[in-house]
């Protein structure tokens, strides 16, 4: 794919991924066929900041996990008052990383 398109994608979506994966993503996109550009561009990624806000506000009800598509973990969090409150606090710090990992997984699925 043309590097100008790839750079545009990176500028738009760079914040949704872990920084150490960015180079890999760039190389993957450069090696990608041009016909997949339209599909890649329409991918919707979850914003780590939004998920963090949700986690801070209603994390003890598991809403952040539900939003990420982890229904099972969400129910686990909901049924246990946010893992006795401990899991909620752990998630305040880890949920942004988890979101970025999920975004990467989604990107990889789209590439295949």
């Amino acid at each position, binding site marked *: 794919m043309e590097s100008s398109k790839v750079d545009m994608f990176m500028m738009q979506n760079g914040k949704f991924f872990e920084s150490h994966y960015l180079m890999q993503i760039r190389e993957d996109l450069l090696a990608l066929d041009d016909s997949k550009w339209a599909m890649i561009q329409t991918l919707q990624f979850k914003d780590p900041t939004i998920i963090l806000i949700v986690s801070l506000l209603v994390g*003890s*009800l598991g809403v952040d996990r539900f939003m990420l598509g982890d*229904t*099972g973990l969400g129910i*686990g969090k909901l049924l246990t*008052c*946010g*893992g006795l409150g401990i899991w909620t*606090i752990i998630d305040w710090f880890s949920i942004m990383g988890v979101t970025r990992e*999920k975004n990467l997984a989604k990107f990889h699925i789209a590439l295949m």
Partner: protein
Amino acid sequence: MSLGQLRLHRILGIACVTAYIWLLYSYQMLQSGQINSVELCIFKRITGLPCPSCGSTRSVLFILQGNFDEAFSINPLGFAIIALMTILPIWLIADIVGKKKTLQYTYGKAERILSKPIVAIPCLMLLGAHWIWAIFNHI
């Protein structure tokens, strides 16, 4: 998105052990006649309102004493929790010993079924109804 097998086993293992320790602690507090003053629910401490799962410890303790009516009125989720606490450890150990993947498979399947709007919406409405009831009755 489904969890990896090792992660699922680890999370369930930790959850089961913590649940039993917490239950034992609460039971001891109950036996010695003290009121369990440790209130871990962040939601309840911040807002003063109970969260949908507040009272499930008390509910489980009532079930263990055979007082099902009281348990149901405090939190019906206690029945689900006690079922999970009985089944999951056995299933987990059976899966690890037998090197099978039945638990992970069932988890993935349950997750898919529960994500469907036709199942999820009634469940959430039931939970919401229980929550409103709990708030008005100061559980």
